[in-house]
């Protein structure tokens, strides 16, 4: 059989052919281009529009950026160097660098905000990254007082005595603990508040009279630039998260009064623009406080910005709480945990994890909203760009300053959103 067959067929291939290369249109760059850029009529139109807009942008901004002058004392000098060509005058950023960063802070004290900023990074490390040494938490705890002292200056005793309030509260708590836990908590909190209200001032005055250790006090109207944005932004971020958590829990509470107050506060703050709250801080706070009180404008702004952000934060966290399956609450109850233990150990860790994107979005929003302080006369970067333009040297400079300020905000905010994505990946526990 097989013999006859082999005889009748003239040619049989007994080895495999080598693989042929795929057609040119199906490999490498050409295939990629076909699939991604030119797969249909609409796609071709979009590609052409996209490429032409990129070319348009590059043609308009490219020469302006490439011809940039980095060393000039004034716009006139810059134009002279450019000699009619289009080009940016980034000399303004070099010339006014310190002003853009520190505002009108005394130059001899520039080391203080710089040091405070570096220390802030150190204090943030254990909070942001699990790999940092745990002992740094102690530094994070004292950092607020340290930063306050470095930025505003004055006697060192005031922040120390204020921080001592926590120690006093803890001491009172430990002393009364044998009586009852609840009473001890109340006594501890009361002791701290009374310490701050009545003893901090006199004791720190007395100590600074006896032992005057301190640095030059600097009033907050000389604060400005990115320093003021960072101070307001970072403080607001740090304070709005805990207040937001409390408000969210209040909104979920079974107690009618607590719930009503929380809902009323959240909806009121979310219903009005931040600007009106800032104006309240600058114009109206004097009406609501006892006659003769006058406290720092930056502190007032921080309070308002924090309240504003915490209302939004509360809604974000409420979303996280609502997204949590009912079974988690029931399981916590079944284990016999009380309300606070259940929140601390079961509910909050999961709810906060779910709401990380929203929380970070609120942080980014808060940081961007710090620019609104320009309307109540605080010289943030945007306010300074107006002030720089008011100077005859740099009258008429727009794009370079706006570009620089925008870039700085972009780096901060983009960094925050990238960090939130890293955190989400790190905390991901489901296996899908």
């Amino acid at each position, binding site marked *: 059989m097989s013999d006859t067959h082999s005889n009748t067929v003239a040619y049989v291939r007994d080895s495999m052919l080598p693989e042929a290369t795929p057609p040119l249109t199906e490999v490498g760059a050409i295939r990629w281009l076909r699939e991604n850029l030119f797969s249909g009529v609409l796609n071709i139109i979009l590609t052409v529009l996209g490429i032409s807009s990129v070319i348009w942008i590059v043609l308009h901004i490219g020469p302006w950026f490439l011809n940039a002058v980095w060393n000039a004392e004034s716009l006139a000098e810059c134009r002279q160097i450019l000699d009619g060509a289009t080009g940016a005058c980034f000399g303004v950023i070099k010339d006014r660098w310190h002003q853009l960063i520190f505002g009108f802070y005394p130059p001899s004290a520039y080391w203080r905000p710089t040091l405070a900023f570096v220390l802030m990074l150190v204090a943030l490390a254990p909070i942001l990254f699990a790999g940092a040494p745990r002992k740094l938490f102690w530094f994070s705890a004292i950092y607020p007082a340290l930063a306050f002292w470095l930025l505003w200056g004055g006697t060192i005793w005031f922040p120390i005595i204020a921080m001592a309030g926590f120690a006093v509260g803890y001491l009172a708590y430990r002393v009364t603990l044998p009586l009852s836990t609840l009473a001890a908590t109340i006594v501890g909190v009361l002791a701290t508040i009374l310490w701050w209200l009545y003893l901090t001032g006199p004791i720190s005055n007395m100590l600074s009279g006896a032992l005057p250790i301190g640095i030059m006090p600097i009033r907050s109207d000389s604060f400005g630039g990115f320093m003021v944005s960072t101070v307001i932004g970072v403080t607001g971020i740090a304070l709005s998260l805990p207040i937001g958590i409390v408000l969210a829990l209040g909104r979920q509470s079974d107690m009618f009064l607590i719930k009503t*107050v929380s809902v009323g506060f959240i909806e009121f703050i979310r219903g009005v623009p931040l600007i009106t709250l800032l104006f309240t801080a600058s114009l109206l706070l004097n009406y609501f406080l006892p006659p003769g009180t006058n406290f720092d404008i930056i502190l007032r702004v921080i309070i308002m910005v924090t309240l504003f952000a915490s209302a939004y934060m509360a809604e974000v966290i409420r979303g996280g709480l609502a997204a949590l399956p009912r079974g988690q609450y029931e399981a916590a109850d079944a284990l016999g945990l009380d309300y606070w233990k259940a929140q601390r150990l079961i509910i909050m860790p999961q709810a906060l994890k779910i709401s990380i994107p929203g929380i970070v979005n609120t942080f980014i929003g808060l940081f961007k909203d710090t620019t609104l302080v320009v309307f109540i006369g605080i010289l943030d970067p945007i306010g300074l760009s107006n002030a720089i333009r008011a100077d005859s040297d740099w009258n008429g400079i727009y794009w370079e300053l*706006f570009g620089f300020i925008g870039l700085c905000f972009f780096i901060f*905010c983009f960094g925050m959103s990238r960090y939130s994505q890293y955190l989400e990946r790190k905390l991901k526990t489901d296996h899908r």
Partner: protein
Amino acid sequence: MAMTNESSGASFRPSMLLYDTRYRSMTIQIVVMFMLMAGFAWLVDNTVENLRALGKDFNFNFLSVRAGYDINQRLVEYTNDSSHGRAMLVGLLNTLLLALVSCVTATVIGVIAGVLRLSKNWIVSRLMGLYVEAFRNVPLLLWIIVIFAVMTESMPAPSAFRGENATSSMLFFDTVAITNRGVYVPGPLFTTSLGAINLGIISVSINFLLILAVVVGSLWANIRLLRHATAVQEATGLRPVTWWKSLLILFAPITVVLIALGFHLSYPSLQGFNFQDGTFLRNSFIAMWLALSLYTGAFIAENVRAGILAVSRGQTEAAFALGMRPSWTMNLVILPQALRVIIPPLISQYLNITKNTSLGIAVGYMDLRSTLGGITINQTGRELEGMLLLMLVYLAISLLISGLMNIYNNSVRLKER
């Protein structure tokens, strides 16, 4: 004694107010209520004290006093002889106008950018990603100022349009002029006017009301027609042809009304040192409009993208398996499900637009905050009343928008059983 007391007195001890969960919430609420009342009383007391020290009282009479300042953009009649209350109304209308147009354009921009960011086209999706990140990570205030600076610094002066060798020319067949003073666009005019109805504080032109009624009526009739077609389809399985009826219903009545009223456009033209006729859109308005639309559009784009991604791939595949066309799949399967995810964040974006119109102060846009919260407060010295009124108005607008949008949201929500 103690023994009898304990047995008869229903075993209530004061410590149960704190330790018994039946009473604890009551105790906490009463304590909170007293603290709140004390805090409130403290604030009111301080305010009364401070007002007395300043020799001021608390009343809203200033709203009927002559304002004495001009407002450069007004939708209703206003002169500097009008009252502060009327100035507030003009500002409120400007705020609402800006919020409305910005919401519309931001939605359009956001939907386009969100869909394009998901496109398979590499360059377009990257460009849209760049747009979204650039606008989301830079403060709105900076964008407003930048766009305002572009409008005032980079656009030609009206004189550049004049003469034989004009350096600038009008766009769109000589109908739109973009100058450093603002944008001039064709304005609608009617040869016959039917007069105006006076509604007490504002007078509304009857022409406008008529057109509005005709448009709403046409839309309603069209909806009725489509419903009828669906009913016929469900009864017989055949859908009657509706497209020409729809076109007729939507466009014939409005065309007839417009012709009857003698509708025509007045085109801006250069006369003397400036453009005349047409409608003048100020730089402040343009800057706010563009900045709010582009900024919020970037956020809406992210919402739209998230909404489309939230519809699982299986839905598309199931629709294709049923033999549906791609366009039907999008309209009948993907969009209705994506909308449920998109609408709640969209509501809060609309609210954000409304609140962000208050940034108009940066470029001198005369909105509610600039009239009532700015010049009126400065002139009358009524900070307390002015700011309270301002906050209440914004609060009312916000609650109104969120209420309306929640009704809509409930109507498209998945009906769970």
